[in-house]
């Protein structure tokens, strides 16, 4: 069980023409074991979506370019795999769901046929058997009346229902890894609660590994066991979920946690991180967070802090950590 399903090493992505390109993802590395749920949190521009897309080589090239690194899935490097073999993995072993289900679904095809097509592409089973599987999937994700809903079009569904259709499609071939990029961001909170419950249920039932990408720490805390915090294209901290909330090690994580309104109940003002993240072209050689950091030191401007072990389950990239002085 402890075998790693996904091993990402030094993944770097640049955008723009050669010579003038900017690096939006810088040497990102992490592992996901079978049955794990890992959350990735970061603000806009932190590189979290570019990261999730480049795992399956889905970033548009050009202008994007994966410049280094490896993405090993069950021992096979997806980045060096011939492009012709990728469709066998996408949607079969690794499935993905996106933020806006309306733009990810085909508007002129019934939802039943769309899910059926996803199965057809990967498994050689007959139409009748596929239909049975589709109805099962629709029931699994909690779409009532699945028989009559099979023939409905995406526009006849509400936002929450469309996201369920996306999840049904993603799960139709029993993937080993589900990449969910902001799956609930476009949904209302009572519908978000339904989708999160569904993801948790799937995980316990099918032991699907989940990579959950969100800007919302509350959503991550709800589903994930481990969190990766990204800032300006780099991992700044990774920790078990409880450690992250109880003992954030990186000043950015600390600031992020403190600026959540529910953590300052009874206080007059919210904690605020000054300034805004720098644009990729404005990042200097040092730590990208230093202009906003309360613990800034001279070294932070010129050198990049490496990820250091804080405890057995926690790593952070900061020169102000006691481990950095050892």
């Amino acid at each position, binding site marked *: 069980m402890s075998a790693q399903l996904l091993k990402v090493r030094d993944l770097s992505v640049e955008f723009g023409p050669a010579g003038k390109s900017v690096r939006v993802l810088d040497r990102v590395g992490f592992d996901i074991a079978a049955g794990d749920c890992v959350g990735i949190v970061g*603000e*806009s521009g932190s590189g979290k979506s570019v990261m999730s897309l480049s795992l399956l080589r889905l970033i548009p090239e050009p202008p994007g370019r994966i410049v280094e690194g490896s993405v090993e899935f069950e021992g096979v490097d997806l980045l060096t795999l011939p492009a012709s073999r990728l469709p066998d993995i996408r949607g079969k072993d690794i499935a993905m769901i996106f933020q806006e289900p309306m733009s990810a679904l085909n508007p002129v095809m019934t939802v039943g046929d769309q899910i059926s097509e996803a199965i057809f592409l990967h498994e050689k089973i007959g139409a009748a058997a596929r239909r049975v599987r589709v109805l099962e999937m629709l029931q699994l994700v909690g779409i*009532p009346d699945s028989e009559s809903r099979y023939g409905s079009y995406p526009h006849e569904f*509400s*936002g*929450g*229902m469309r996201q369920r259709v996306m999840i049904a499609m993603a799960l139709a071939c029993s993937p080993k890894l589900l990449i969910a990029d902001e799956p609930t961001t476009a949904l*209302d*909170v*009572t*519908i*978000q*609660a*339904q989708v*999160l*419950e569904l993801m948790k249920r799937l995980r316990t039932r099918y032991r699907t590994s989940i990579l959950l990408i969100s*800007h*919302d*720490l*509350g*959503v991550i*805390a*709800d589903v994930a066991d481990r969190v990766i915090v990204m800032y300006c294209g780099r991992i700044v901290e990774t920790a078990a*979920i*409880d450690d992250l*909330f109880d003992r954030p090690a990186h000043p950015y994580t600390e*600031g*992020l*946690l403190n*600026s*959540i*309104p*529910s*953590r*300052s*109940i009874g206080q*007059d*003002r*919210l*904690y*605020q*991180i*000054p300034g*805004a993240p720098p644009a990729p072209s404005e990042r200097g050689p040092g730590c990208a967070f230093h202009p906003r950091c309360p613990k800034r030191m001279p070294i932070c401007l010129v050198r990049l802090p490496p990820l250091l072990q804080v405890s057995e389950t926690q790593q952070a990239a900061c020169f102000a950590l006691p481990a950095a002085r050892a």
Partner: protein
Amino acid sequence: MTALLRADGLAKVFAARSRWSALVGGTSVVRAVDEVSIELAEAETLALVGESGCGKSTTGRLIMRLIEPSAGRIVFEGDDITASSGAVLRRARRRMQMVFQDPRSSLSPRRTVLQTVAEPLDANGLIRSAAHRREVVAQLLDSVGLSPSVMGRYPHQFSGGQRQRIGIARSIALGPSLIVADEPVSALDVSVQAQIVNLLQDLQKERRLSYLFISHDLAVVRHIADRVAVMYLGRIVEIGPKPDIFRAPHHPYTQALLSAAPEARPLRAQKRIVLTSDVPSPSAAPSGCGFRTRCPIAQDICARERPALRDVAAGHSAACHFAQPNPLGRPS
């Protein structure tokens, strides 16, 4: 004390007429807002919360008279503005302003910060000279935490948080008493969101502003509001002082809504109430209580009789036949 703003029995009915319904000869009617009554005192923040389609933004726009109410009355600073026009309405509008969710689409990309912020001043003939214009705009920018040196720049040169500051500077330019803020921080990252929430609170203290704060984000509401009104299918289902609403919600929808918001501090022990199904379409609203189709404690009476808003504590009322503190059971 007289209220700064009083809305009584506001309603907005849209006739949803599509090309198809013209052929089949029918129009469906959507009651987007119905029987909404609110009061707002000076320097007070009333939050309107609810999910998409509940009518909270429509309510905000009705109060601004950006859309015409189908029924009801709006009294602002002592004047009935429900049907006023011309000079009376123009005068009221100087005193009520709006801040929008997405500053990218609410700021003109072809206007400089100076032009954008000075626009309401120009439109009301309050500018004496070019130098005066720059001076006033510089002061406004300063009060929202922007350097006056950015006056010549265009919106695309700013980050989301800075753009929202520009929108706020424009909204306070005429010295309003009421600001209707429609999801003002929803498009912002959490670290920037805190900056804008703090700014809104600072401005409220300095200028004694009243906010009608429209939001789906309960964590922000819990921080900024004095009172909270919860809307569902176009109606207020519960309204009361913030501490009462969060500590002892009396409507099952309020309780479910509060419990559904994921906590950023993992409280694994807390039981979440997950509502089944979706919000019904406002064009086919259920009989009786609008929430009954999703309500875990609905009875026969809920389909027959629409529950009226009734007082459950001082200044706190709920529209439920079975209103009681935490009607779906105590959170464990």
